């Protein structure tokens, strides 16, 4: 066995008793080298998860070199420490979570100086790790684990008997190190990515609406599909606005990962906040643009904001650099031609124009992000046309989402994430048959349904206002009289033709004599607003039937 040679090329700073070794090149006997190489390059090793791979390598090293201990320590870059990750013979090193500062002791020096170090007699050497002394280890040999010029850890072997580790031992250890280092690097990179991915996915999920509200006169479906590898900053939002209107938002933050997901959350909140201030879509996006500029960090996003009014069927629409919406009707689909304003955060004081178009009953408004239609080497307009064809025959928002995803999302997954929000103006039935919870907040819902129904019956502004207040008063009575301990409900029926409409509200309680001025006033309102009012006391409750001839004004 050859004597270790002290290195002369660079002069590492070493502790006492430490001897730096020059890398071993071709020192092994050819047959021995081939044998070792073969063992360490067994292809089945690369299929193992990192822990198993390190375990196998440690076993191989221990057998080949006939040493008592083998250990691998990995660099913790943030802490500038080496942490024991795998060991044979000194397993406590891992269990006790031994950490060695870079530059300190035996392993720390190997990492700092990036050289192999040999210690002939531990008793006289600079050693930080107490376990090595406790175990009675006498001689040590260690090598740095290096990937693409960067240190990722240290691997060392030890002997309970004094031993002169030679160049051939070093060569074997270097082979094992060469095998371990890239695997460690890959695994830790994957772990980092997975961690970031999990954080982004969790963030993304937490920032999207949990549950869609119950909207009157519209049906909504949404999707969020994460990308195969990275999380992006796509989002959608659906919220209720005054007078039964519904706000739909779709957006896409430029970038990926946690940062994009976090900005997405802020933008989603910003759009919603300005929207409930009753700004129209154009002004809302202008304000969000100012918000993005005020963040003081480079940020850019595209977004579109649509407000649908179920009473007028009008969609007010504004877009900041976002792709055009698709509308699906009974005669097929069409891409709505709107000129987008610049993306959010692109130019100071950008203006955002507002567009208006009609969404007829049963038509579907389909908003999406570019991940759905963008394919490498295919013009974007072709992707949008393909989307329009895919959703062509959808009868509902759910069907449209499904058709778009089956038609456009490749089986191997998406390169970019995708958000979709689709809204349909649902048809109003000729007759209303509703069973509603006897709670005060139901009233606003009743008024929304009823207004829409009255508009469909041809009711004019006065008709709608007066019938609505009368029916709402009758429902308020039903709610006030719902005394049952179980969750109470009441029924509302509405029907009519030739301008003669009837609304019946039936509850399960007993109407008491009007309580004070308040209820009395409610009955007066019903009587003045309707042509005929009948209050019937049934065994099971009370029914008020109200009839009115529409004035069409």
């Amino acid at each position, binding site marked *: 066995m050859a004597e270790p040679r002290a290195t002369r090329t660079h002069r590492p700073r070493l502790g006492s008793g430490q001897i730096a070794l020059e890398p071993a090149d071709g020192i092994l006997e050819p047959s021995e080298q081939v044998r070792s190489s073969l063992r360490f390059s067994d292809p089945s090793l690369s299929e193992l998860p990192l822990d198993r791979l390190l375990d196998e390598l440690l076993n191989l090293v221990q057998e080949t070199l006939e040493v008592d201990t083998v250990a691998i320590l990995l660099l913790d870059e943030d802490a500038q420490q080496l942490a024991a990750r795998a060991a044979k013979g000194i397993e406590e090193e891992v269990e006790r979570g031994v950490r060695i500062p870079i530059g300190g002791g035996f392993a720390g020096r190997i990492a700092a100086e990036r050289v192999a170090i040999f210690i002939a007699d531990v008793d006289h050497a600079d050693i930080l790790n107490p376990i090595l002394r406790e175990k009675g280890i006498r001689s040590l040999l260690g090598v740095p684990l290096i990937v693409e010029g960067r240190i990722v850890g240290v691997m060392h072997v030890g002997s309970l008997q004094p031993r002169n580790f030679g160049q051939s031992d070093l060569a074997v250890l270097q082979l094992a190190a060469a095998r371990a280092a890239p695997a460690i690097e890959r695994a830790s990179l994957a772990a980092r990515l997975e961690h970031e991915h999990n954080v982004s996915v969790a963030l993304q999920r937490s920032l999207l609406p949990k549950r869609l509200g119950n909207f009157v006169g519209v049906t909504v479906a949404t999707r969020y599909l994460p990308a195969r590898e990275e999380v992006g900053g796509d989002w959608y939002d659906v919220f209720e606005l*005054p007078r039964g209107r519904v706000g739909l938002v779709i957006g896409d933050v430029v970038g990926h990962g946690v940062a994009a997901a976090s900005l997405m959350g802020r933008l989603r909140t910003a759009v919603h906040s300005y929207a409930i201030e009753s700004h129209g879509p154009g002004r809302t996006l202008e304000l969000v643009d100012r918000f993005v500029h005020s963040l003081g960090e480079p940020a850019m996003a595209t977004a579109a904001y649509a407000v649908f009014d179920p009473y007028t069927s009008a969609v007010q629409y504004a877009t900041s650099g976002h792709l055009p919406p698709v509308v699906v009707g009974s005669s097929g689909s069409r891409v709505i031609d709107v000129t987008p304003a610049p993306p959010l955060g692109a130019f100071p004081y950008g203006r955002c124009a507002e567009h208006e178009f009609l969404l007829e009953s049963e038509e579907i408004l389909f908003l999406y992000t570019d991940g759905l239609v963008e394919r490498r080497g295919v013009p974007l307009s072709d992707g949008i046309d393909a989307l329009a064809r895919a959703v062509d025959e959808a009868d509902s928002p759910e069907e449209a989402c499904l058709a778009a995803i089956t038609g456009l999302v490749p089986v191997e997954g998406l390169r970019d994430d995708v958000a979709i929000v689709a809204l349909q103006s649902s048809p109003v039935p000729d007759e209303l048959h509703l069973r509603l919870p006897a709670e005060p907040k139901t009233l606003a819902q009743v008024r929304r349904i009823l207004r829409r129904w009255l508009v469909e019956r041809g009711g004019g502004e006065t008709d709608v206002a*007066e019938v609505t207040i009368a029916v709402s008063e009758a429902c308020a009575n039903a709610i006030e009289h719902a005394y049952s301990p179980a969750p109470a409900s009441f029924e509302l029926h509405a029907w009519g033709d030739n301008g003669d409409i009837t609304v019946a509200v039936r509850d399960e309680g007993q109407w008491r004599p009007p309580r004070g001025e308040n209820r009395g006033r409610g009955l007066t309102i019903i009587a003045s607003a309707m042509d005929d009012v009948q209050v019937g006391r049934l065994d099971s409750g009370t029914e008020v039937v109200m009839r009115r001839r529409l004035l069409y004004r």
Partner: protein
Amino acid sequence: MSIADVQLSQAPGALVARLTGEVDMSNAEELGATVMGATPQDAYGVVLDLSAVEYLDSAGIYVIHGMRASLQSRGQNLVLVIPARSPVHDALRLSGAERPGEVVEELDAALRALNAPPAGS
């Protein structure tokens, strides 16, 4: 979502409360209590601006009557801003009720009415 909102501001000698949205039994009492709680003891009174209210029914009318009574017991006045063609105007008409306070059509008129010396003094 919340179906109504109230914005409060101070004018000389008065609290101006501007209601928006829909007022019914689900929120009328809270809205009334919010306005009353914000009214300074030394104000002449309250201007309740109902011009932007989209819906108001007997529950709202009841609360406004209650506000008027409380204010009067403190020596304060209630002036309502209700334009001629507005949902609140229609609700009051349908209810046939006595007007729950002095009614004007615009905010400026309300402030003038509130600061004018009471008749007969």
